[in-house]
């Protein structure tokens, strides 16, 4: 069962499960336990299946670890090695703690995704009911094709999904607790670490530089909490501190943000005043020239205020920062200094818009027409011509198009019907009768349509049958050309699925409509489709036979 190539991350001996001694293995994707002296696992769980782990409280005689699965089952391991039980258990716990979240997300995401698709698409849901619930095909088969099919829009929808922002108070959530002996304990969760990294890219950079070559993760965070960087009143950032650089970079970021100025002219306080008083005029006391007068306390207050502004700006920027933008070299600078918006080159229009907004009284206007969203084109030329192939090709410029329109208009104006060459009126009217409902050429259309003939419940049933058959047939036809072993297997299976479908679904339906004395050829088309598939299968099989022999 266990493939040999699996990487074993941790082996814990002398672990009991159901009163049996054995060994616990933690592997890359699953956790497994095998009884002593046997080379197979009796317990094996994928990490993705595990909902959570529980441990027995400290001080209990039995040192245990329980895994609870999504299905609700659980398995308990008892660490029986007297001397190292606790250590073993903690090691296992730690490792699991790191591993589980990774798989959890994946599993959940998949499940969520499936759920979402079913909820959003009633047709798909019906199909699911028809095929999976009635066990025509298995759930995996159903999804295997679906998920990959929708992978395109799947990724799209993933991008469109709003990213979860960061709580502004994430640093406050790390409540330091005294551990009783002159120390502080900080509780860090992966969420908080994520928040720190996203808000302060410089810390992430430091982390990447130092962990694990220079420092362990734990040491890194200890340093972090000890550093002045973490503490708001960063006054004397010592040189030895690895975070002093971060502080400097932050400072720089803040400065660049400030010098960049603001885009919205309505909030630009620098440009507010039209004419400032010259130096020396006015009643307001001139700003004291010396900074000596500022006390230390005032300075630290200033630092706190600055820090809050910076923190909020960073949090705001982190929420807006795109994941891919981070990897992008060009946007690196803009993303680390907390400036979240793309530089727009359209300053004057923005100003106009803001001014217009400011003077608008929407209740005085007669109709509040919705403002249309204006199209923002980088290259308007490309928009009007569409993508143009690179090789030189005679393509029509807008001038040509305009010219030709002009020519056509001209022709239209000067158009004169040549009355001598038209059809005779009798021929025309006979053509019209032939084409009207009931006419010679409209014979096919004279049949009444299905929705007039058949009661609605039968209709909807027929619809479901069509979608189900369509789905199965799609599966079937996608197997061709059959060039792998897997596809061969699949095509055989699909063939049997089709037959089963015909037997369990189509037949009863046919009988039902016969009972209701409806025209039997309602299902004719379905039968035809199935027949086509069968004959394809037959052809393929006979060819295979001949090839084999």
């Amino acid at each position: 069962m266990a493939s040999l190539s699996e990487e074993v991350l941790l082996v814990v001996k002398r672990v009991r499960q159901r009163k049996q001694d054995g060994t616990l293995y933690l592997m890359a994707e699953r956790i497994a336990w095998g009884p002593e002296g046997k080379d197979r696992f009796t317990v094996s769980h994928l990490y993705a299946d595990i909902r959570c782990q529980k441990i027995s409280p400290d001080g209990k005689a039995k040192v245990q670890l329980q895994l609870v699965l999504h299905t609700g089952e659980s398995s308990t391991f008892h660490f029986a090695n007297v001397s190292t039980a606790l250590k073993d258990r903690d090691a296992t716990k730690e490792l699991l703690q790191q591993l589980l979240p990774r798989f959890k997300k994946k599993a959940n995401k998949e499940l969520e995704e499936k759920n979402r698709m079913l909820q959003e698409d009633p047709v798909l849901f019906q199909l699911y009911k028809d095929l999976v619930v009635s066990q025509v095909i298995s759930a995996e088969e159903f999804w295997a094709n679906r998920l990959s099919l929708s992978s395109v829009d799947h990724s799209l929808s993933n991008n469109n999904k709003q990213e979860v922002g960061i709580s502004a108070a994430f640093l406050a959530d790390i409540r330091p607790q005294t551990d009783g002996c002159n120390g502080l304990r900080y509780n860090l969760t992966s969420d908080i670490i994520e928040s720190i990294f996203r808000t302060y890219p410089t810390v992430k950079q430091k982390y990447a530089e130092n962990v694990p070559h220079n420092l362990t993760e734990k040491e890194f965070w200890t340093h972090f909490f000890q550093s002045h960087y973490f503490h708001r009143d960063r006054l004397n950032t010592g040189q030895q501190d690895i975070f002093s650089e971060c502080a400097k970079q932050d400072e720089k970021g803040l400065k660049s943000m400030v010098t960049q100025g603001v885009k919205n002219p309505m909030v630009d306080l620098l440009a507010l005043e039209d004419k400032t008083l010259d130096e020396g005029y006015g009643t307001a006391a001139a700003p004291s020239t010396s900074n000596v007068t500022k006390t230390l306390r005032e300075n630290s207050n200033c630092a706190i205020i600055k820090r809050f502004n910076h923190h909020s700006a960073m949090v705001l920027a982190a929420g807006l920062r795109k994941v891919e933008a981070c990897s992008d070299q060009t946007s690196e600078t803009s993303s680390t200094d907390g400036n979240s918006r793309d530089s727009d080159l359209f300053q004057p229009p923005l100003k106009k818009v803001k001014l217009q907004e400011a003077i608008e009284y929407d209740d005085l206007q007669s109709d509040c027409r919705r403002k249309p969203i204006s199209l923002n084109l980088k290259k308007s030329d490309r928009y009007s011509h569409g993508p143009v192939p690179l090789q030189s090709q005679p393509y029509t410029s807008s001038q040509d198009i305009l010219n030709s329109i002009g020519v056509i208009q001209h022709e239209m104006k000067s158009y004169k019907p040549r009355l001598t060459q038209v059809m005779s009126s009798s021929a025309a009217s006979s053509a019209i009768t032939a084409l009207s409902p009931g006419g010679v050429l409209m014979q096919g259309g004279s049949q009444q349509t299905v929705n007039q003939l058949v009661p609605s419940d039968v209709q909807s049933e027929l619809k479901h049958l069509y979608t189900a058959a369509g789905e199965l047939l799609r599966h079937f036809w996608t197997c061709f050309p059959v060039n792998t072993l897997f596809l061969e297997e699949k095509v055989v299976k699909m063939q049997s699925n089709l037959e089963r479908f015909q037997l369990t679904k189509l037949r009863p339906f046919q009988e039902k409509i016969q009972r209701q004395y409806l025209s039997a050829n309602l299902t004719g088309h379905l039968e035809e489709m199935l027949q086509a598939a069968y004959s394809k299968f037959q052809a393929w099989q006979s060819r295979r036979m001949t090839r084999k022999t």
Partner: protein
Amino acid sequence: MKLNIDGLLVYFPYDYIYPEQYSYMLELKRTLDAKGHGVLEMPSGTGKTISLLSLIVAYQTTFPLEVTKLIYCSRTVPEIEKVVEELRKLIDYYAKETGAKSNFLALALSSRKNLCIHPEVSSLRFGKEVDGKCHSLTASYIRAQRHSNPAQPVCKFYEEFDAVGRQVPIPSGIYNLDDLKDFGRRKGWCPYFLARYSILHANIVVYSYHYLLDPKIADLVSKELAKKSVVVFDEAHNIDNVCIDSMSVNITRRTLDRSQANVETLQNTINRIKETDAAKLKEEYKRLVEGLKEANVARETDVYLSNPVLPDEILKEAVPGSIRTAEHFVGFMKRFLEYLKSRLRIHHVVQESAPQFLKDIFEKVCIDRKPLRFCAERLRSLLRTLEIADIADFSAITLISHFATLVSTYSKGFTIIIEPFEDRTPTIANPVLHFSCMDPSIAIKPVFGRFQSVIITSGTLSPLDIYPRILDFRPVTVASFTMTLARTCLCPLIVGRGNDQVAMTSKFETREDFAVIRNYGNLLLEMSAIVPDGIVAFFTSYVYMENIVASWYEQAILENIQRNKLIFIETQDAAETSMALEKYQEACENGRGAILLSVARGKVSEGIDFVHHFGRAVIMFGVPYVYTQSRILKARLEYLRDQFQIRENDFLTFDAMRHAAQCVGRAIRGKTDYGLLIFADKRYARADKRGKLPRWIQEHLTDGSLNLTIDETVQLSKHFLRQMAQPFRREDQLGLSLLTLEQLQSEDMLQKIAQIAQQA
């Protein structure tokens, strides 16, 4: 719609109208008819600007001989631009309705920094640099030098304008700052000088207060504006401070040192010129004998600050002999500087009046009053004669000369205070001479005297009677308009106690109290949990805010607030604050919500609007009294008491309340807007404070919301916010706070409207 305002056909560019707008226009019309001045208070967001513009433009078109020009003064550049855009809307409407293209010319004027299109000069960041650089390219003698030396760089935009720009007047239309720049670029003309030239024949000029109130600039820019103009001061609640600021001078030791250096430079230049070009100085002397009139034909490009005093009779006199020659004048200035230096060498505070100062200076260094009066004018002339290129370097000596002129001209309304050190740091010597104007009417008097109608208007002018008193004029109309509301979209609450019943107040004795600070923190925390989007909180001063923020941080209150909203804080650095403001708006925009901690009397409280979701609640922590220990303020209060019979306390409360109202009013910018206005100080509940709030706030202040605890506030706020979140449609407003033309014409509506205006 077309309105009939007391017999005047007024085009109003909207299909609906607020009743108070109609009422406002009626009062305005009466003021214009009487050719008098007016004080009109109407809450912001009720379309004050468009009402003003509609009526005055209509008046101008109907009676072109009565009112020739509208001079619209506003405070900030964005405000100016907004006014021009509203005007554009109005004129477009005129064109649409009448079918004829109007020949209206309206333009905005701003400083060079906002109008320059010279590639090098406009790239400079600070206004002063731009002015200096511009001057070095366009000053009259620089251009004269170019005749002999073609290599001399000049501004080609100005040259072009000077050559052809004056012959053809600018085509009629509405020119905002950007439009002027576009036009200038197209023609290759300098937009700044074009605008300054064009205001003379424009129908409407929009610019900032300073161009009219600051005599140093007003003389240069607005001197030739027609008498038959209507002047509007919008957002005028602070106009007295603008007036005072423009007339006050501070002299520090640094100023004196720099002036000293300036005088040295002047001396050297004079000596050099004497050797090379003595004729030039002779000519100047001759000119000065003939009087200053000649010298006063100022070339428009010269940015020398003009004489700070206006009286014409001085200009007709000849410059006194003692300072007529250049050397004598420099010697005179040296003497004056030495005297000032000796005055700054003191160890105790000195306060004296202008006559006392003059007496002392005559006794000590024998400087007479008369030559002092001519100081500014004489220096201007000298600087021009000496062809000093970089005027900015001479700002110190210019300041001193202005001081000399002012102190010798006005015997009343000013005070001189010499402080040897700052109050906070008594050990560090930092002597300052404050020459402080105490009477705002001095600066604004010429405006009232010159123009036939001056309208002072704002959202917060209460109590209305105080402005005519401190500005010393007699208005023909004084009125306050309320905001008619279909739903009470503002909810003023006075929070006086914490949940622990400890009184909340920023009173000096208790402001450092731990319980008060904690309660303030709890209030903000509770509000941050229930108010959607943006909250703006104002503190009474910057230092106070710093302290509170620090202790909130220590008490982990800020951390808890951060769980609800992002926090942004105003700093003393304007660029940093702009950044914080923008981020704040961004956070409100994307739904995160944010809190802005700000300061009353700060830049944010004066110039930034928090419309709709940018400000769903405003919290005013404490009563924003001005720092009362300052000697300048004390002197001013004394003056107010003696001259205008305004009691100190009345004025202080008035000043505090107008700033508080200004702060909380930032959040309500229209009838579809809504917001909580929270006054967090128990003192607001007192009648003397409450009574000084604008009428449109007072009206909604019920007795039940006077002394609330934090919990009660939260309950009331929740209720209010839930109500306001309901959809609000036009039908709800129609007939109550929004009128169609038919509704407006009905008899009982007109009766109702008559009650909107409350005459003071």
